[in-house]
């Protein structure tokens, strides 16, 4: 593979890296607080839009099989030119996904950052680096690369969480996040080392080949390794019981960061989980399905039950996002080998993630708008929102419906596919638990609805959310509706993105 070829395949990553560096550089040139600093946001946004364009442009390059991306540096880890990443449909899906996350988060953060954050350039650059880490981890096909990119993502997340230095909660959240994260990734790394020790390779497909060959004397090492890897990824996705950091980090972090954290690392975690389990450990399917089914059930249930008692919307949405990850996990648990079926579980997972992206980022954008105005994200800050800003109230209502899974919203399509997969695999219990949980969840989403529509605000004056947030909320709302009313392209995208994974397995 020539250098040019390599660079072309890495174009999306390069675009994002360059944008982040430009933002950092200009931040140093432009005086802090100066008028020109507003352009930093624009540059970051333009970079993200170019990212979409570039991703679409290199899409055809993958052909049908997916292209390995190899670096010469892989030499020391099992031979010459070990592929570290792949440009396959799944990776491309997450590149697109990342770009959408970045655009929505950046749009929503403008006003918030202007008012509350001192070092804007670094903030935007860190968010962009977070996006870069997401893309790398979703494309990684090598344990080393997976570990590095996940750590990259974690570190940017810790920094962003603690960004409000004067705020105790922000610092507390960051420290908690960091301590949990460091432990979890150490455990995961140990799991990786066991896998490496047992199979002698870091390449995901290679691990599968070796394990299938039956020549592994310490075959049983895979079980502890599997558990340890699940600890690390469970932490990223915030699956119960590795979720304790999430509510504190979500509540303490600057709200745009919370929005990012609730979608970005979760999606990256799922991408790695899918790839790792299906590519490296397909032979252990029965084992990890059993474990993940249990985790899905407790994650949904605990997330929902604890969310019932929250009075801070950020915290409430934190628990809600824990529960949402539980629903998504059903897609992976109920994966179906035959790709002809309408729901393979995996496509449900991707659809659900996509639905969740628009829904959750939209909801957080509304929270940011309310917080910008009211100065708090407590439930009562939402009182009478319908009178004060009907646009925000109606769109928030739509997002909440989507989180519950009521049609015609994106969340419904996601749930239709993952529950459909569960029924298809005769995992009726899992589907029923999911459904019961959806009903329970109504009650805490209703807490927000009640404030918005039935609550009486102390201050009833209307307020404006500002152009950035208006666009972010508007785009998210339109996409939430689109995904239900014109679902076909989204379903296709999701199905094609997992086709390779489903076929390899």
């Amino acid at each position, binding site marked *: 593979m020539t250098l040019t070829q390599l660079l072309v395949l890495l174009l999306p990553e390069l675009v994002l890296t360059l944008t982040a560096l430009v933002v950092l550089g200009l931040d140093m040139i432009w005086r802090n607080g100066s008028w020109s600093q507003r352009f930093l946001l624009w540059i970051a946004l333009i970079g993200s839009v170019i990212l979409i364009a570039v991703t679409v442009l290199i899409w055809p390059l993958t052909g049908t099989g997916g292209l390995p991306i190899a670096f010469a540096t892989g030499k020391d880890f099992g031979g010459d030119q070990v592929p570290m990443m792949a440009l396959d449909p799944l990776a491309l899906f997450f590149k697109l996904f990342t770009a959408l996350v970045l655009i929505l988060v950046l749009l929503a953060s403008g006003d918030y950052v202007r008012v509350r954050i001192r070092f804007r350039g670094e903030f935007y650059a860190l968010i962009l680096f977070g996006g870069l880490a997401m893309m790398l981890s979703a494309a990684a096909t090598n344990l080393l690369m997976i570990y590095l990119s996940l750590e990259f993502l974690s570190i940017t997340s810790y920094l962003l969480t603690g960004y409000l230095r004067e705020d105790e909660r922000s610092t507390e959240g960051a420290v908690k996040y960091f301590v949990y994260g460091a432990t979890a990734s150490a455990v995961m790394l140990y799991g990786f080392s066991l896998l490496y020790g047992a199979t002698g390779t870091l390449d995901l497909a290679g691990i599968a080949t070796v394990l299938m060959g039956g020549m592994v004397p310490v075959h049983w090492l895979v079980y502890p390794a599997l558990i340890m890897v699940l600890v690390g990824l469970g932490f990223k996705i915030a699956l119960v019981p590795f979720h304790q950091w999430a509510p504190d980090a979500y509540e303490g972090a600057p709200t745009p960061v919370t929005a990012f954290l609730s979608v970005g690392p979760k999606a990256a975690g799922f991408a790695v989980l899918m790839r790792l389990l299906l590519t490296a450990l397909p032979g252990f399917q029965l084992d990890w399905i059993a474990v993940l089914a249990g985790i899905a059930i407790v994650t949904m249930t605990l997330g929902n039950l604890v969310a019932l008692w929250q009075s801070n919307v950020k915290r409430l949405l934190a628990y809600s996002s824990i529960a949402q990850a539980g629903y998504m996990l059903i897609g992976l648990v109920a994966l179906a080998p035959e790709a002809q079926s*309408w729901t393979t579980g995996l496509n449900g997972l991707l659809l659900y993630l996509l639905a969740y992206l628009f829904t959750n980022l939209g909801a957080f954008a509304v929270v940011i708008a309310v917080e910008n105005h009211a100065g708090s994200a407590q439930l009562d800050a939402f009182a009478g929102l*319908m009178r004060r800003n*009907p646009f925000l109230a109606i769109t928030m*209502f739509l997002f909440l*419906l989507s989180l*519950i*899974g*009521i*049609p*015609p919203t994106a969340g*419904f399509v996601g749930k*239709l596919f993952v*529950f*459909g997969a569960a*029924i*298809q695999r005769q995992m*009726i219990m899992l*589907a*029923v638990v999911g*459904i019961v949980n*959806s*009903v329970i969840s*109504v*009650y805490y989403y*209703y807490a927000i609805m*009640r404030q918005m*529509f*039935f609550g009486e605000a102390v201050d009833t004056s209307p307020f404006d959310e500002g152009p950035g947030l208006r666009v972010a909320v508007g785009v998210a709302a339109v996409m939430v509706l689109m995904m*239900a009313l014109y*679902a*076909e392209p989204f*379903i*296709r995208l999701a*199905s094609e993105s997992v086709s390779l994974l489903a076929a390899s397995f």
Partner: protein
Amino acid sequence: MNFPFLTLITFIPLLGAVVVALMPGKHERALKLVAVLFSVPSLVLALIAWLLSAQAAGEMQLLEEAVWIPTLNAYYRVGVDGISLPLVFLTTLLTTLSLFYSAYTIKKRVKEFFALFLLLETGMIGVFVALDLILFYIFWEVGLVPMFLLIGIWGQPQDRPQYSAIKFFLYTLVGSVAMLLAFIAIYLTTGTWNILQIPSLKPLAGNPALAIAAFWAIFLAFAIKVPSWPFHTWLPDAHTAAPTAGSVVLAGVLLKLGGYGMIRILLPFFPDLFRQFAPWIGVLALISMIYGALVSMAQWDLKRLIAYSSVSHMGFFMLGLVAAAASLDVANPVLNSRAIALNGAVLQMFNHGIITGGLFFLVGVIYERTHTRDLKAFGGLSAKMPVYYGVMLMTALASLGLPGLAGFISEFMVFRGAFALIPTYAIIGIVAIVLGAAYILWKIIQHVFLGEFSEERWQKIFNPAHWHFSLDMARFEVITMAPLLFFMVLVGVYPAPVLNGINAATTALLAGL
């Protein structure tokens, strides 16, 4: 392509909702006018569609079909037959009347109210016309949301509107998510969402346990909506709390969604299971009828009383349905009893919509004047409000099944069918009619209109400063009631125009089982 009747009927209100939502909120008169006007085309089109196709409505009419989500095999597929046509018409009629009535009575948050009401109409009509399970489910849920807000925002503070709203929401959602799982299971075995096609594919025939689970899951969704005892407890709260127009549509249309679902989906999809479980469902119907009537009799809140009477009257509907289902294995039931029972059940839905919708309007009449619904606070109003007395008397008598008015025809047909097919149930059920007469004559007529009129008591509840129309029924209230009275008499005296279509459709439906 034919004229897209059903699409227009369904979506013009949605367009109206959008237009109303985008209009400036200050011009309340204009908002109200626009909202009412946007509901009229659907009414007119529904009437035309009904007149055009009702007499030969044995099979689906006015079909429209378009691919919607190919990978999911989901279609935009709508159509009506003699069962759905009267219900579509009922929906459009009650919505237009409700909007017209509300234009005079809704004072707060006008814009939201009218936009939501139009959105609600789209959801309700959609359920009656959808012939694709996904589409059906989406409309089913679309109707849920606006009603939830209507109850919560415009409910009377003393009736705990928010509690009632979320209770309504949760009850319906529990049923509908269970139904969704069943739909998915059906789709996985049949490969289609087509409501007309699925019966012939015998859904879940290979897996009896799953079939039974799916049957009860779907039954639960519809039974909650109907509502059948013991799933009815959301109804009195929701009805009591809802604003007048909300109660009208809730009783008049939303309950019919459940009944319609039972006939359109549950019975054709699982005829054998329905027959097998008919004795149990019949018991639920009987309990609903008698328990509903007894509880109704014990109420002192006029609105709550009528709410419970709905439980009782929808029990009649279920009895008719059960009678038809229970006898599916009888080759030739006496004198078409099966079709008669099912016809009675469908007609009962239509009549209940007209009559109970009317009763809720009439509760609104007295409530708007006095801001109380306490039966003990009234008495002797017949002298004070003679027109109101007359209209109420007629509607109430229609409700208790007086021959010559609508209620009699459908109740008679239900019992006529049930007596031939499931006589024990019919004999027990007849008690509910007696009880119905009791609560209507004793509670409503006697306590509100008869007896001594006490000026002192009246002064306590009626403040002329708060009421700007005439003391007796105002013109807008008479106009609202007039079409309903017309249908009560028409169906009571000459039900053929309504029944012919229903009969054609039910006969075809039963023949296909």
